[in-house]
């Protein structure tokens, strides 16, 4: 019999037993729906991550390599020479290398206070400092024109000069440079507040204009930062690792200091790892569901074969070959699971859309052809794998026994 006719036969016999077919499909539907949902959400997430870490001007992912000298006094040599840059450029996945200087907005310094040393947090600001309780704030103008001025907090003022107002217009030495204290802010707690830190407003003991600080410390940090623009699809962590390896083994300054990397995708990576774990979990559950569903399919097919023994005998007497019978039952079980797969895919799409419509979700689910192909492939495979044994049993039935 022609393939298409066998398939029509298979489809009809599924439709003739609607309730049983639907119950058998349920496991497939649930399993496929779960996989499709989690895939769509996972894809949506990774799209969102890629978009958010590539939202710089060039639209490319950038990572950074910084050189940290062991001995800050010895600054004669360049952190990266031409040869270093050439080496780095050769790493696969790097589109462009830009050299610049790192200078953190914050620094932890030690100050001599009453014959003891005290650790203080310094902020190099480009704009306004936070509110003061005496004197004035730092302004953007201070930064622009390079005023050598500082704002300190009340507790530091007290321990250095005995009072908040006393401190005004005194000098304070920071990084070997003398700054005039023009303002005093409220005391800073010793522990840093996390939410302040996230919003970029860490209360510091000392605030000075950034430009002034840069002017004096330029020589120390010139050109110690490489910004690597990655080619599309390159993985930041992977590229960083390779670059670090090359620099640590061949870098010109490898004996005088350390190279470190900064991966902007790292945070997204940890988030992604959690999502991955969830994906694995859901996949495992879906896998078990599909396996059990497969057993259900096998069971139903065995029952169907037993019920239709006479039909098999009639077909064989009418000229069906063993392979015709096998194909008929195999197609029946595959059609059943593929049908379940389609329903499951539809359900999964609805679920994923529902989940991404939740207000807490920062991203939309994304549907790919891969997800559809997976649903189709897996459901087909389940039908074929678990249908083989019943189909073989059907085809091997002894004609004499069943035609009597």
């Amino acid at each position, binding site marked *: 019999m022609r393939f298409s006719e066998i398939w029509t036969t298979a489809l009809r016999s599924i439709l003739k037993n609607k309730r049983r077919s639907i119950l058998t499909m349920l496991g497939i539907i649930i399993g496929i729906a779960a996989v499709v949902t989690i895939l769509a959400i996972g894809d949506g997430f990774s799209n969102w991550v890629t978009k958010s870490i590539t939202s710089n001007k060039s639209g490319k992912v950038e990572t950074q390599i910084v050189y940290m000298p062991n001995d800050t006094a010895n600054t004669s040599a360049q952190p990266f020479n031409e040869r270093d840059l050439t080496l780095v450029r050769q790493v696969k996945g790097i589109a462009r290398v830009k050299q610049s200087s790192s200078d953190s907005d914050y620094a932890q310094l030690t100050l001599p206070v009453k014959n003891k040393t005290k650790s203080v947090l310094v902020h190099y600001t480009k704009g306004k400092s936070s509110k003061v309780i005496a004197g004035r704030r730092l302004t953007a103008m201070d930064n622009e024109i390079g005023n050598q001025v500082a704002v300190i907090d009340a507790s530091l003022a007290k321990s250095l000069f005995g009072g908040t107002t006393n401190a005004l217009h005194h000098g304070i030495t920071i990084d070997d440079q003398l700054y005039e204290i023009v303002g005093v802010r409220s005391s800073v707690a010793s522990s840093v507040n996390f939410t302040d830190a996230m919003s970029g407003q860490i209360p510091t003991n000392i605030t000075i204009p950034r430009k002034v600080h840069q002017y004096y410390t330029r020589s120390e940090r010139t050109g110690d930062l490489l910004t690597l623009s990655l080619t599309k699809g390159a993985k930041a962590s992977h590229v960083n690792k390779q670059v670090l390896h090359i620099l640590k083994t061949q870098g010109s300054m490898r004996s005088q200091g350390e190279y470190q990397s900064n991966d902007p995708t790292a945070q997204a990576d940890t988030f992604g790892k959690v999502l991955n774990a969830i994906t694995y979990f859901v996949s495992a559950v879906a896998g078990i569901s599909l396996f059990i569903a497969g057993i259900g399919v096998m069971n139903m097919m065995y029952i169907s074969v037993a019920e239709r023994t006479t039909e098999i005998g009639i077909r064989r007497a009418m000229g069906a070959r063993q*392979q015709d019978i096998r194909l008929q039952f195999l197609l029946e079980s595959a059609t059943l699971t593929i049908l379940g797969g389609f329903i499951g895919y539809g359900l999964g799409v609805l679920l994923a859309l529902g989940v991404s419509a939740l207000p807490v979700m920062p991203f939309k689910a994304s549907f790919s052809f891969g997800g559809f192909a997976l649903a189709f492939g897996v459901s087909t495979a389940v039908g074929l794998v678990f249908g083989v044994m019943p189909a073989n049993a059907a085809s091997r039935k002894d004609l004499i026994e069943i035609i009597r």
Partner: protein
Amino acid sequence: MLIELKSVNKYYQNGAQNFHVLRDINLAIDRGEFLSIMGPSGAGKTSLINLIGFIDRQYKGEYLFNGDSYQKASDNTLARIRNRSVGFVFQNFKLIGNNTILENVELPLLYGGMTKRAAKPVVEQALIRVGLSNSSQKIPSELSGGQQQRVAIARALVHQPKFIIADEPTGALDTKTSAEIMQIFRDLNRNEGATIVLVTHDPQVSLYGDRLIKILDGAITADEEVTQHALL
């Protein structure tokens, strides 16, 4: 000769016991013959025609069909020869209950490689021939016993087989319906030259054929011409 059996013996293995069901059968059937087989229950009639219809090949001796033996043929070859050469009418109709009449009757055509579309008019023609026009979309349970047997006959002749085997086709039918069914067989034989091998219990039914063999305990006890035909 279309069918030739030479010293055919058949045994059923029942545990340790060997049951001798066909004893030294010698039988030749020519094209166009209408042969009736009679015998008491358990005589071995079904065993004999299953063997002739390529359903069973566990026998000793020789069975030549058109001069060829198929005892050692592959399952696929047997399926093909069943499909091309044999039309079966079973004792209890044996229609597929879930399928429509059309789907039942088209089976031999589909297994012969025809498409459903091409098979449909051929099926309708066969149904008309057995007096069952306009019921191709019904399912078997909607038909009477006599009508179901007509469907089975349509299925047996739709693909124009070399011969038709009918195992007690009137066994479950009343006298009047039996006569109608037998009339179809006789017309097939007379008008279209179909070769028919028909098993029956009923002496009245055997009178429709041209030749009658009697079987007792697996052996042929009589083989004679039917002179006194049933009243038309």
